[in-house]
């Protein structure tokens, strides 16, 4: 809480008020000058030169000089908290940043990155014009030449190797609109290999959470954490990764005197503020969670009513949990039973309790299972669907939630429509193109390596290759890759190259590519690894601060950001580049049929309207650009805790801030959005809801629908399936539909009108009628404690591939080798080999990784910002005091960190600290530009090298992929550390 000085207005007048009350000792600055007497030479004369300021005079409103200050609001491009950035612009130059006090999310505050964000648009290290590598030299080219050559090359590759040979890597820094047209572009190009950063941060969360209760997103919000009486932060360090969220976390902790329990292998900056800190061994999250649940079940602390009404198959979990008695938990994870009992009691009894997790839970070979276990912990204690409870999943990038929603994912179309015929047909209708034409764009895959051939339709419905494995898609023998050929070209938009594990193999892959295109404000690691001589293009893209569009924060709130300044240098925004490329390929007319395009730039608002027209499944239908802009105008009206505006407000009355999805029905329906998912205590029109009936109505004779539980004011007072015309007819609700809506439904349904559902009805009629009856369009189901479609339906502990405890591998092996997402996953073989070769003896230290507050992601952007770079100038490894002493390592000296694969080594500085326990080392993952001890600065195009370079932590990371999503293992591998 800050106090704004109340006296006086801005500018000179205010100064007057200050001087009036002058105390005898205090000296006004002018009086000071007066008193200084004799003026000596030129030194003081300077004070007389040039009165009136270019900058602040105007900023203060003292309009001595003509030009005006305009204030623009955009959203910070870094983490997912969604802080509003308020910019002061004079003559098209961003001259200052002011606190955004009215934003209910950040309330004026920022972290280091947000407070330094102005530098991004004027950074002298930005890529300034398109470039092409000619014989190992970077040369400047024009945009027209770049688009022409790239277009010709990918067309050539498509003709020769098929559409799947080109990989489309998108970005979590896209706006929703850019993410959407990028995914649409992938569909029109004819591939499902369209991915983005969610793969490597929360793909396992999305898979695990969606498979539990319906939607793969944070159930509550940052602000709602203020209601919690107990919070567990597991595998997350929001103090560094999401600093502004700590404002809500710590306020909640203070106001409610809440328990703040941090479970982490590392004593993080977050842990420093905890009321209980649980240090675990990396990769033993499931034993710890089951260990907590063991105490819950043992003492009968579970929420029995909640479980019986809203959870399916909790008994299956009980069986697994029974194995994890305190002794076994301590043997595997190192956490004593007594401590977990305390945690269990607090979480189950001091409610509402919320569970917060981040990449410490997700980036594992058991990532999806970890997430599932965490959801089950919430379910067992009844901590979902109420204020102060829930799975508060802090996502990583500004729009990683939105980009995931928009389907930058190899397994889905926009808004989680799966890769099935019905979904493709839905989008074909929205896009106004022929389904058959779309299908014709996909590849026919011949039979190989004992696998059947694939038709175009099958290719269309086959998930693509994940971004974590793109280089395996290049390097592996072609018969192992489940498509016509391996990957031949990488089209990389806004994505660092150092964020995937096994970097040495990525470098190998880079050398083999026929084409590499990097479209980014900075050259990124992809362009600077010295792996290529030609066929490499750099396209300067502006930051999202330089473009209009919406962004979805972690809490599903959608915020409209307006262009602060025009794209710097020759950079262009994503919309224009995608449009130009589509145009070159002859796809533009079809792709932008219903989207306004001016001067090659598609209009963001119009793209959002198209998203609204098709986004029924996730409730992305009510957030029109007009409503979102009204929210930005009226930020001050939203409540800090409930995020709701007063009902009587003319513009945003009753809305939740940012219309968090699902926001049902057409915009005119004025659904307020859903602040807390699955909250049965509210009418659906007020943002209430139930668990999603996504998995059928019964299984093996047991119902999957909720029992005696329903949202407030519901006409149906028991569980119900998702709504289709067939269900409507049974209930007689079809009569509530207007003629116009019926006409649209009939057109959609064709011969089978009964199959038209809440998610495919383009008229929004089904959703409207559902709302009128107080029911959730997606049904009222049970959350699943047993997700039978996943590899481990009930999560089981599996040791990391490279484990420091080979003795546990026999009992808790990783999953057998299998094929996933077009690729082989040979984790079992690798684990076995590591155990057989005694890797844990040569590499005795657990290596884990994470974020620094100053940097973000691959770090090229933030490491190019001198205000941030100054604060972290060296890549480092945190090593325990004891380990350092054993090795004769001093704080601040260079050390070699070596890994068990590829003879990998990294030269980094030692940070000797007890943040990590003995036998554990930690490296931040934001660095790149040094490779195995060599400084690669000269390989960057001149002048575009980031201020700070360092070894990438992924130089030394190793094999290991989640079976569901291909998530990489970054949090638990082994290493050795030696003094240089």
């Amino acid at each position: 809480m800050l106090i704004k000085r109340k006296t006086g207005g801005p500018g000179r007048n205010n100064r007057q008020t200050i001087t009036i009350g002058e105390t005898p000792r205090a000296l006004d600055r002018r009086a000071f000058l007066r008193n200084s007497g004799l003026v000596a030479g030129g030194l003081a004369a300077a004070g007389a030169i040039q009165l009136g300021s270019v900058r602040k005079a105007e900023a203060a409103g003292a309009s001595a000089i003509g030009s005006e200050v305009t204030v623009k609001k955009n959203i910070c491009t870094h983490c997912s908290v969604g802080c509003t950035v308020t910019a002061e612009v004079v003559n098209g130059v961003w001259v200052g940043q002011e606190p955004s006090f009215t934003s209910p999310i950040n309330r004026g505050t920022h972290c280091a990155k947000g407070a330094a964000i102005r530098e991004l648009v004027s950074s002298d290290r930005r890529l300034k014009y398109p470039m092409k590598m000619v014989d190992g030299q970077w040369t400047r080219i024009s945009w027209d030449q770049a688009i022409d050559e790239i277009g010709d090359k990918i067309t050539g590759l498509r003709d020769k190797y098929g559409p799947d040979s080109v990989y489309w890597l998108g970005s979590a820094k896209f706006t929703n609109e850019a993410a959407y047209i990028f995914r649409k572009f992938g569909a029109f190009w004819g591939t499902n290999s369209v991915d983005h950063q969610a793969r490597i941060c929360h793909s396992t969360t999305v898979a695990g959470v969606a498979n539990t209760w319906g939607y793969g997103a944070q159930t509550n919000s940052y602000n709602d954490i203020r209601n919690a009486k107990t919070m567990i932060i597991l595998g997350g360090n929001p103090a560094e990764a999401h600093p502004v969220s700590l404002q809500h976390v710590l306020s909640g902790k203070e106001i409610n005197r809440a328990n703040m329990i941090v479970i982490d292998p590392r004593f993080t900056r977050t842990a420093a503020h905890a009321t209980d800190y649980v240090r675990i061994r990396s990769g033993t999250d499931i034993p710890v969670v089951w260990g907590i649940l063991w105490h819950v079940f043992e003492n009968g602390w579970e929420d029995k009513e909640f479980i019986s009404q809203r959870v399916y198959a909790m008994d299956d979990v009980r069986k697994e949990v029974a194995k994890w008695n305190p002794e076994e938990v301590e043997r595997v994870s190192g956490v004593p039973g007594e401590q977990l009992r305390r945690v269990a009691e607090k979480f189950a009894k001091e409610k509402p309790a919320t569970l917060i997790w981040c990449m410490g839970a997700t980036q594992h070979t058991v990532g999806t299972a970890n997430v599932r276990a965490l959801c089950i912990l919430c379910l067992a204690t009844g901590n979902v669907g109420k204020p102060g409870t829930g799975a508060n999943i802090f996502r990583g990038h500004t729009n990683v939630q939105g980009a995931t929603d928009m389907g930058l994912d190899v397994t889905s179309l926009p808004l989680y429509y799966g890769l099935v015929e019905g979904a493709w047909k839905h989008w074909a209708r929205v896009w106004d193109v022929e389904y058959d034409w779309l299908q014709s764009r996909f590849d026919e895959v011949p039979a190989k390596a004992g696998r059947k051939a694939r038709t175009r339709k099958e290719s269309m419905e086959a998930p693509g290759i994940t971004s974590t494995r793109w280089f395996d898609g290049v390097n592996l023998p072609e018969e192992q890759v489940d498509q016509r050929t391996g990957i031949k070209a990488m089209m990389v938009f806004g994505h660092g190259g150092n964020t995937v594990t096994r970097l040495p193999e990525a470098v190998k892959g880079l050398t083999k590519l026929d084409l590499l295109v990097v479209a980014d404000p900075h050259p990124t690691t992809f362009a600077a690894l010295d792996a290529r001589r030609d066929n490499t293009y750099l396209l300067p893209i502006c930051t999202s601060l330089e473009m209009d569009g919406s962004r979805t924060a972690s809490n599903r709130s959608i915020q409209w950001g307006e262009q602060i300044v025009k794209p710097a240098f020759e950079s262009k925004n994503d919309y224009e580049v995608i449009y130009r490329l589509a145009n070159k390929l002859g796809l533009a007319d079809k792709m932008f049929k219903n989207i306004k395009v001016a001067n090659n730039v598609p209009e963001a608002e119009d793209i959002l309207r198209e998203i609204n027209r098709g986004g029924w499944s996730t409730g992305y239908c009510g957030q029109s650009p007009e409503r979102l802009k009204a929210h930005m105008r009226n930020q001050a009206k939203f409540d800090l805790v409930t995020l709701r505006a007063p009902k009587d407000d003319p513009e945003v009355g009753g809305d939740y801030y940012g219309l968090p999805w699902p926001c049902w029905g057409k915009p005119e329906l004025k659904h307020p959005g859903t602040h807390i998912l699955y909250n049965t205590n509210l009418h659906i029109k007020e943002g209430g809801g139930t668990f999603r009936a996504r998995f059928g109505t019964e299984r093996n004779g047991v119902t999957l629908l909720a029992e005696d539980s329903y949202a407030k004011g519901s006409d149906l007072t028991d569980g119900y399936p998702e709504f289709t015309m067939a269900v409507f007819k049974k209930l007689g609700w079809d009569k509530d539909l207007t003629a116009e809506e019926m006409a649209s439904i009939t057109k959609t349904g064709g011969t089978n009108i009964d199959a038209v559902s809440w998610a495919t009805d383009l008229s929004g009629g089904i959703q409207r009628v559902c709302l009128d009856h107080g029911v959730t369009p997606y049904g009222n189901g049970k959350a699943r404690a047993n997700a039978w479609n996943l590899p481990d339906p009930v999560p089981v502990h599996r040791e990391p591939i490279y484990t420091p405890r080979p003795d546990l591998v026999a009992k808790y092996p990783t999953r057998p080798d299998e094929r996933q997402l077009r690729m082989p996953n040979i984790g079992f073989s690798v684990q076995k080999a590591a155990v057989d070769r005694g890797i844990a003896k040569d590499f005795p230290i657990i290596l884990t990784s994470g974020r620094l507050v100053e940097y973000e992601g691959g770090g090229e952007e933030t490491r190019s910002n001198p205000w941030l770079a100054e604060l972290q100038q060296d890549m480092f490894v945190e090593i325990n005091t004891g380990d350092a002493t054993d090795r004769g390592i001093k704080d601040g000296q260079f050390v070699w960190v070596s890994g068990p694969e590829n003879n990998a080594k990294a030269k980094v500085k030692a940070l000797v600290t007890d943040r990590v326990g003995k036998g554990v080392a930690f490296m931040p993952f934001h660095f790149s530009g040094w490779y195995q001890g060599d400084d690669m600065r000269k390989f960057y195009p001149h002048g575009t090298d980031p201020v700070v370079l360092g070894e990438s932590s992924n130089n030394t990371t190793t094999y290991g992929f989640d079976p569901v999503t291909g998530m990489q293992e970054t949090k638990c591998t082994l290493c050795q550390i030696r003094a240089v």
Partner: protein
Amino acid sequence: MARMKFLCDADRCIECNACVTACKNEHEVPWGINRRRVVTLNDGKPGERSVSMACMHCTDAPCAAVCPVNCFYTTADAVVLHSKDICIGCGYCFYACPFGAPQYPKVGNFGSRGKMDKCTYCAGGPEPDLSTIEYEKYGSNRLAEGKLPLCAEMCSTKALLAGDGEMIAEIYKQRVIKRGYGSGAWGWKTAYRETVAI
């Protein structure tokens, strides 16, 4: 008249460094000069606390006292400022400063280290308010615009408080009473010869 102070609530501070970069942003502070910094105490051990520190604008400021050329002055808001025209860059203020606030453009030897620079509480310098020359020598003057220092305004967890001493002490007091703990107003005893009594 307001008596401006800083108070860093270490039980809120998470070393996010927003205060540091906000300062850089607002005043275009070049690399190597840190008007504000965050120091972590007991790093990696239970009880670890981080404290954001800059010039505390002391009561009866030691820097001003030891300055051989009396280039310091205190404004009516009790903000301690200095004149770069008069400063000779001798470095005595750094020796006297309990908080390590003064910085110099050059390091290495005492001779020509340039004019001292330090936190101005976003209140500029002796030049006319909001003039270009003031901005270039001292940075922006938010106080003259009726605003508070940007570091405190942008603090991610509202740990860093700026404003009238009595008011921020009251806010801090309320917080401590509400939550039941508080590691104190860091540096207040040294800077202001008083502390926040709870």
